[in-house]
């Protein structure tokens, strides 16, 4: 059996992959809710890097930073969803491409 150990770069790769999928989601989907979820995915992947690197370097700050990200994400979600609901009330649609009133 090969002595295989999980190193930090494994976590980094996983996080990079998740982040890229999140980016793809934002670019590809039209539904505002799914776009929003993709953003959450990106935040999650960043959290993973925080915790992994924190554990790697023996710094508890990694965990603290992850907690802060979670808190901020929670605040962001409440406001974001409230905005989506408010928009939906006026437009009856959650299609991000229809909301182009700010076009130059």
């Amino acid at each position, binding site marked *: 059996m090969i002595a295989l150990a999980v190193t930090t770069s494994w976590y980094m790769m996983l996080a990079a992959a998740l982040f890229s999928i999140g980016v793809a989601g934002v670019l590809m989907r039209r539904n505002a809710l799914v776009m929003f979820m993709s953003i959450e995915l990106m935040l999650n992947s960043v959290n993973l890097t925080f915790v992994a690197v924190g554990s790697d370097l023996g710094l508890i700050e990694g965990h603290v930073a992850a907690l802060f990200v979670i808190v901020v994400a929670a605040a962001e979600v409440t*406001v974001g969803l409230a905005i989506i609901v408010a928009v939906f009330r006026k437009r009856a649609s959650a299609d991000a491409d229809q909301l182009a009133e700010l076009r130059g």
Partner: protein
Amino acid sequence: MSEVIVFVIFAAVALVGAISMVSARNPVYSAMGLLSTMFSLAVLYVVLDAHLVAAVQVIIYAGAVMTLFLFVIMLIGVDKADAYGRQVPAQRIMTFVVAIGFFAAIALAARSAWITGSGAFGDPEMNGTIEAVSDELFGTWTIVFLSTVMLLTIAAVGTIALAYFGAEVEDEEALL
């Protein structure tokens, strides 16, 4: 070795969840995909000795954030006609190029020595228990912590304001 197995299983679940979130036509399935990703990340946090972060991840993300998403999806109905956008020319190809570019770029950066210098986990003393994290949180980061409290309060107020003003607009339209 068990660590490798756990990592492989849950990394796979996370990736599958993420991909299904992006690709599912029905937002409820998207939410389920994201949920499974978040769960597997929580498991990975436990592996990384970040117990508190794992618990908070489940409570906040799974318990609050995703429930809220689900709630909103149910509230505004599922728009099944929603498909992948075609408004920008060659959007899909562009998206894949950008996403792969992103992955490549991050992978490149992650391979740099300053991230993975030690290779294996360094400090065996470190343990992400409630006590350890809160010592740091309420010691060094008190001000930051308090400002997140402010942030949450503002978010709550903003959400309520949005809900109320939205209702007003609706009423005006009804009057007209």
